[in-house]
């Protein structure tokens, strides 16, 4: 699934704290199938999350989001999360999400401008996230073109395939 970085994302916020680990995002040791995972993602921190999350919602979190094992946020996309906006992300989680073109944005200060349940606008072309109700905004980190290309292609496996075909055809 390719992700268009130029699209404005607007959604209701689920707000989490610091150092949310991948065991709670993706507890696949306990729930090995995607159907089960969808029923249990994030419940370690918010038991109501799997039941109440709606397509288009935005996940906001503090520092070090996705620490722990190497597991992408695919389940978050599956339950409808439209964007993940965090103070900082753990390097491996960030990398995992870029590689699968799952929209994730670093926005230092984000937890100071939105509360749980607020509406948030994520405007990557203008590299800003704003709370339309209060007018407060924070800057998003701009990705280098190398990463923008991966989002555009729909993930690194697509980039790999394009390159492989181009090289094989030579």
């Amino acid at each position, binding site marked *: 699934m390719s992700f268009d970085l130029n699209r404005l994302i607007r959604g209701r916020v689920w707000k989490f704290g610091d*150092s949310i*680990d991948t*065991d*709670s995002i993706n*507890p696949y*040791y*306990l729930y*090995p199938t995607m159907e089960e995972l969808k029923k249990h993602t994030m*419940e*370690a*921190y918010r038991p109501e999350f799997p039941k109440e999350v709606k397509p288009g919602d935005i996940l906001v979190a503090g*520092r*070090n989001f996705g*620490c*722990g*094992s*190497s597991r*992408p946020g695919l389940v978050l996309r599956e339950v409808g999360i439209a964007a993940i906006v965090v103070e*900082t992300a*753990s*390097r*491996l989680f960030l*990398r*995992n999400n870029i*590689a*699968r073109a799952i929209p994730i944005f670093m926005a230092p200060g984000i937890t100071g401008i939105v509360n749980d349940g607020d509406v948030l606008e994520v405007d990557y072309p203008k590299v800003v996230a704003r709370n339309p109700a209060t007018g407060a905004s924070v800057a998003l980190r701009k990705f*280098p073109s*190398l*990463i923008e290309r991966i989002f555009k292609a729909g*993930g*690194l*496996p*697509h*980039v*790999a*395939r394009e*390159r*492989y075909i181009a090289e094989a055809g030579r």
Partner: protein
Amino acid sequence: MAEKLLSQHNLTGETVKAGDFVEARIDGLMCHYHAWDPMYDMPAEFGFTGGLPRVWDRERVFVLVDHHQPALSQKLADENARTRREVNRLGIKCFYDAEPGIAHQMVADYGLVRPGELVVGLDSHTISYGALNVGSTGFSRADILYALLFGELWFQVPPSIKVILNGYQPNYPIAKDIILYLAGKYGEDFAGSMSIEYSGSLVSQLSIDSRMCLSAHGVEVGAKYAIFPCDGKTRDFLKGRTDKPYEPLTPDANAVYEKEITLDVDNMPFVVAKPNQFGNVCPVNDVVGIKVDQAQIGSCANGRYEDIEIAARALKGRRVAKGVRFIISPASQQVYLRSVKDGLVETLLEAGAQVVTPGCGICQPKVGFLSDGEVCISATTRNYKGRKGSLNADIYLGGPLTVTAAAVAGKIVNPKEVFNEL
């Protein structure tokens, strides 16, 4: 050292600085039991009919069927079989299959990586090889798919953080206490996306086992690399394990560091991480008296010879408290065999501990699940909620000596109170 490492491996040959993005050539790639996914399922999903068409170098891809050996369920047996099939199809030479153990320990045991190399792996604790002066780190399955095909990958050059460890090594391992102490003091992401370089007067006294514990835990404090200098101990360890030449990484005299942290271990107390976060750390004295149901030593952080040796030495002539399940899992067959030959396993069994097959089982909810309300103290990597099954169980992390002391006392205690001979 990270700038040097990535400059040397940069495809364009240019020198790079912290913050730059590069595409670099890799020296080795480690895949664990999940190899079937980047080799078959994911490529198939993205249009490579029949799976990945090749690997870039059959000698530089290492596949180790770890985590679930022997297979713990039908599903895992089937997944392991798929990994076997893909490895054969792709002609991968370096394959460790019918052998239980944790991939990261086996990579070191079998001398698959060398100082100065850039190595990627399909697991967050790939960073462990930094103990051997390797720039190694974990990647996602999609990144690994790309690296398997081309032997190249994109990297952002991390800034470096210097961690200076001074003091004397006591006659028991303290690596776990060091990293927990630092996580507690500076926050559990204090090395977030940075490259840790270990130095200081303690470093030359640290065994390779202790260095591997510190490097493995680099990922718990957010690091991308966690690199030790290559010294006599490194070379001794590699002797007989690899005959390929290597060129160690060394820091430049004028190297720039984003941060410097100094720790004098002589004044460091025994510490534990309280439930749910690695950085939720306090001196063990703050939590003494908490009753434990299970104690564990193992994982890619603490399943090494010295961790098992200290448990055995401390248990000699003592008994595990009634009702406490003390579970020990060596990190690999080599570690296990040495522990058996040296009589450690006999001592552990006599004292009432359980020794289980090498592997990842006790680090995950696979072997030794916890029930609601139970307390576990563990020398393993992680204490996230639900890591051992129940969301209502408490997991404390501590060093192997602290864990053994709790197993003997049946509650968390300061090891000095139980083992006055140490």
